[in-house]
Structure formats: structure tokens, C-alpha cells
């Protein structure tokens, strides 16, 4: 990959396709979970697709991405092949983490996609270090780190934010504020819920973004990434979004008001973007149908690939605890 490519020039159709790929992928994952082909924890991103697609569209291939356990969307938007992601979900050797990580630990060194971190806020210090390495080696890259409103309460966020600002590192902190940390609402997590304001108190350039609008996310991320590359120091985006489904497959979602969920679903990033494109005459029913068919085809192939894929031989369990020398 050439460092010249600093960000994609995606069309609106690309953006729509990107969101559809994530949505359909996860809907299928939910089915595969019920069919016990996917196990462990499964955290769905449904409703938040505009964040991953918009933000990652503004990054170049040599930039680094650090994510959470709710990262299917980030992985797909980053360009990981759907086949290797689905194979990982099923624990197959062809998976992007060789089947050892599963849903919470999608990794791909070639795409500079550094997980897939299941300890809340645990990815932040690592992202700080990736940014430091780029800086010390004089590379023009940006490291983008996704984390949630819950992670903001962890000490690791505080330490990372201060160090990033202190050292003016090329770090983009992307806080996906979906208003809940598991069953705990924003107002029960934080005394002061204006996270963008609090981020500013560290000396980070920071602003809130509508996370249900893929253009808004992409444009905000582009602006931040350009500023970071220009040497303006780390940035923080509070991306306001909402998860439409439960926290995980184990969650009965007792803590959220149905009306609240319904209100947010009104703002579904895919339906609203589709409507917007159709109003502007940029999308017609046939194109949309073709797009859906294309995505369905890719997904079927990914599932078939994953189902057919082999598991790692049990003999190699102890491989890679240490490097082979």
C-alpha cells in the first residue's frame, strides 16, 4: 500500500454498501449464533454502522485502527475480507485471527487493524503507543482508536488522553457514545455527560458528531485527520449514536425504554441515508435491489467459505505463545 493514499474517495453508493454489508453480516451472525455456529460473546453494532463506515472512509491504508469487542463493523469497513471475518466468528483457521479470537478479537496486521480488544479501554494505551511509534519514525500516519462512553470512565482513558495531548501525538480518539455501557445509562456512568467538553479539558481538540449521519461522521473525521496530519495534535470526536439491539446475546435489555429505542430507530443510519439518496435522485429501487443482492451474495459466499473452512489442528495449540525461533 502506498502512503500516498491518505483517504478513500468513496461514492455515496460505496458508503451505503459499506453500511449494508455490516448490517446484513450481523443479522446473519445473530442467526448463526442461534444455530450455535458462533459461540462466546457476540456484541452487535446494528444502528451504529454510520460511525464505522464514515470514520474509516476518512483514513488511509497505512493509518492504524484500534477497536473494541464490538468491532465487526470496524473490521469490515476497514477492508478485512468478509470471508476471513466470518471464518473467525466460527473459529476456523482461515479466520483473521486463525479462529483463536472469535467475535471479540478480530485482528489483521496487513490492514493495520489492531483488534478486537475485549478489556474496556484496554486498547487506548496501545493506540497511544502506535501513534508514538509513527511519530518517532517520522511517518505521516494517524492512529484511530474506537471506544465507548463506558470506557471514558476508566482510568486508562484519562491517562491516555493526557499523554496524547502532552506529547501531541497523531491520535484520533473516536468515542462511540451510544448512551449505555451494558445496562448503565450515560447519566449513571458520568456526573458530567458532555464528553466532548470533558475531552477538551485535556487540551484535546474535540467536538460532537451526529453518529447516525454517515456524511457527518466522514466529514468530521476527515477534518480531524487532516488537522492531525498537519501537526495540530490529537483530536477527540464524540460520536453520538445508539445500539438498536441488546448489549450482547445474553442481554434481555430490561434497562432501556422501548419508546427510546423506537425513537432512535426512526433515525436508522441506513434507511435515512437511503431515503436521502433517493430524494436527491442518486438512488433508485433497482440500484438498491442490486446493491442488496450484491451484499447478500458476498455474505452467502462468506458463510459458505467459513462453514467449509477447517479448524486449526489441536496440535498447534501451543504455537505462538512465544515466537518461533
Amino acid at each position, binding site marked *: 500500500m502506498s502512503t500516498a493514499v491518505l483517504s478513500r474517495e468513496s461514492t455515496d453508493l460505496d458508503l451505503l454498501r459499506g453500511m449494508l454489508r455490516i448490517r446484513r453480516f450481523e443479522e446473519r451472525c445473530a442467526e448463526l449464533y442461534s444455530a450455535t455456529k458462533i459461540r462466546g460473546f457476540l456484541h452487535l453494532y446494528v444502528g451504529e454502522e454510520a460511525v464505522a463506515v464514515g470514520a474509516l472512509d476518512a483514513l488511509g491504508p497505512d493509518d492504524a485502527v484500534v477497536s473494541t469487542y464490538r468491532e465487526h463493523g470496524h473490521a469490515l469497513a476497514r477492508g478485512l475480507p468478509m470471508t476471513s471475518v466470518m471464518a473467525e466468528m466460527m473459529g476456523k483457521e482461515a479466520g483473521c485471527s486463525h479462529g483463536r479470537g472469535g467475535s471479540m478479537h478480530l485482528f489483521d496486521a496487513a490492514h493495520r487493524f489492531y483488534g478486537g480488544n475485549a478489556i474496556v479501554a484496554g486498547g487506548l494505551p496501545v493506540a497511544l503507543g502506535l501513534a508514538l511509534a509513527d511519530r518517532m519514525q517520522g511517518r505521516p500516519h494517524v492512529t484511530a482508536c474506537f471506544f465507548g462512553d463506558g470506557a471514558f470512565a476508566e482510568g486508562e482513558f484519562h491517562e491516555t488522553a493526557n499523554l496524547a495531548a502532552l506529547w501531541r501525538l497523531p491520535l484520533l480518539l473516536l468515542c462511540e457514545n451510544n448512551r449505555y455501557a451494558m*445496562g*448503565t445509562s450515560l447519566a449513571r456512568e458520568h456526573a458530567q455527560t458532555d464528553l466532548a467538553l470533558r475531552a477538551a479539558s485535556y487540551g484535546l481538540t474535540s467536538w460532537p458528531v451526529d453518529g447516525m449521519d454517515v456524511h457527518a461522521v466522514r466529514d468530521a473525521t476527515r477534518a480531524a485527520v487532516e488537522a492531525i496530519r498537519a501537526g495540530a495534535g490529537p483530536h477527540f470526536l464524540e460520536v453520538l449514536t445508539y445500539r438498536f439491539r441488546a448489549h450482547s446475546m445474553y442481554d434481555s435489555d430490561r434497562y432501556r425504554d422501548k419508546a427510546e429505542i423506537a425513537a432512535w430507530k426512526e433515525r436508522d443510519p441506513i434507511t435515512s441515508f437511503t431515503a436521502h439518496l433517493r430524494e436527491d435522485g442518486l438512488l433508485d429501487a433497482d440500484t438498491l435491489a442490486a446493491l442488496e443482492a450484491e451484499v447478500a451474495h458476498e455474505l452467502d459466499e462468506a458463510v459458505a467459505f467459513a462453514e467449509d473452512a477447517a479448524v486449526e489442528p489441536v496440535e498447534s495449540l501451543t504455537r505462538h505463545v512465544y515466537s518461533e525461533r
Partner: protein
Amino acid sequence: MSTKTRPAPETDTRTTYREAVRAGLRDALLRDERVFLMGEDVGRYGGAFGVSLGLLEEFGPDRIRDTPLSESAFVGAGIGAALGGMRPVVEVMTVNFALLALDQLMNNAATLLHMTGGQLNVPLVVRMTTGGGRQLAAQHSHSLEGWFAHIPGLRVVAPATLEDARGMLWTALEDPDPVLVFEHGSLYNDAGELAPDAGPVDLDRAAVRRTGSDLTLITYGGTLRTCLTAADTLAEQGVSAEVVDLRTLRPLDDETFLASVRKTHRAVVVDEGWRSGSLSAEVSARITEQAFYDLDAPVERVCSAEVPVPYAKHLEDAALPQPAGVVAAALRAVG
């Protein structure tokens, strides 16, 4: 040597390990107004594993206190609240996240009483889920209770039965010192009979869960079942295995397992921690130190493979102790 058990009254009812822990929490909250439960999602969510479901509605948000993701602060707050006269039960959702609170546990909870010359007790109970086996992969499958048992000043317990799931909490709350309670995630759905009025159990003694004569299987918590299964298989092969449930990992009750080993002359120690530096190593060393001349064979250990626990089922199964591995070790010991 075994723990206090009472004749089960007519009124016995079926209950799960999850319900037994919940009943233990209710007992405590009803019995002592200084008791409160604090942790991530213990309230509105009902506990990540459903243990505290319904308690918020019964006891209110002051005593069933949801916290933000701030393990170090809310565990430390439990220490301070204990110093301030409360009887906090802090739930750390899983042991994997307790690493973030280790400084508070080792440098404050475990240390204050001794460092102050006996002035400051820390009557804190910390509950956490431990263990693997549910395909949660490397960062969510740690079995660190044996590792925490290295720390002087802490009491570490691992309830493996319904009676202990309910009763250990009661006794732990009467303990003037910090107690860590490790609940293995694979046990919550275990069902069985438990007296509705089941009470406190002692935390000082290990328990012989099955008597035998040819060798002793020493274990606790999540691998008790593994050992009992192995003992059945061994019985079919004519090998009579005694099974000791350590129950309390710190301080260890040497007498119980030594008495068994002096009787059987052979021992296999089983736990789910990584083998090197496992609790099994400590038990093995103690047997060597105190019953060396009673041994007819080297003490064997069956622990987890020394790898981060992988997601794929077949790899995870291979990484964790299984009955077959215990049987093989037992046959080596008697063979």
C-alpha cells in the same frame, strides 16, 4: 473433616447455583443493614450473570449500587466503605477485570491491618466470576483465584457446591478481614437440592467430597466436577479415588488433604490455572514438605495448558483440564 451439613428437611427445593448466590446476598441484605452490593450492572441489568436479578427492586439503588466502569475506584471505595463501618459486597464482573483493581487489593485491602499494627480492619467481600470453558477467548477466560491466593492478608474462597455458594457469603461477611469469593462461570446453572434455610458454612476446612482409598484428587471450584467425573471413570477401572475440595484457597487447610494423602499415598492436584505457578504447585510443594515419606509416587498436577485460552471450542477444550487428563494422571500415579 467435611463442612457442616444439616439433615435436609422435607421442605427441600430445587435451586441453581445462581439462585443460591442470590439467596446468600438476600440473606445478608436482610440480616444486616450495613451490607450493600456495588459493581458494574448489578442493579438495573441484574448482574452480568443474572445473579442479582430482582435485588434492586427489593433493596433500592442505594444498597444495590450500579457503578461506572472504574474497577480500581469502586474496589477501593469498597475498602474505604468497610473502614467506614459498612459491610460492602463488591462485585467485579469477572476476575479478568480485577487486574485493574489489583493495586487496591494488594496494597490496601490486604495490607492495612498489619501495616497499622492492628488498627484498621477491612471487612470487605469481593465477588467475581472466574474461569473459562465458554469460548470467551484469551482476555475473558482467566482462572486467577490461585494466583490471588499468593497475597497475605486476603482470604480467598471458591464455592463449588450450592451449599457453599449460599453459605460462604454469609461467613465471609462475618469475617473482619477482606474475603475474595470466586464463582466459576460454568457453575451458575448447576441445579440441585438446597435447604431453604441453608445457613453459613465454615471457611476453615477443606471437604472430602468423595471417599476413596487408592489416591487423592485435590481440587476446588470449577474443576471439582471434573474430578468427580474422573473418579467415576476410575472406579469403573477399579481405582478408588478420594476427592478433596479445598474450598478455601488462602489460608489452605493442609490437614485435610494431608490426612487423605497419608491414607492413599498418592495425589493428583487439579486446577484450571496455568500450570507454572499454579495453586497446584503450592499444594504439591506442601505435600512434599509434610508427607514426603508417605508418598508412593510423585505428586501429579493437571492444570491448564500454558497458553492464552483460545476461542475455538476444540482448542479451548484442549487448553483446559478435562476428566480424561485427570484419569490419565491418576493412572500414572497408581500405575
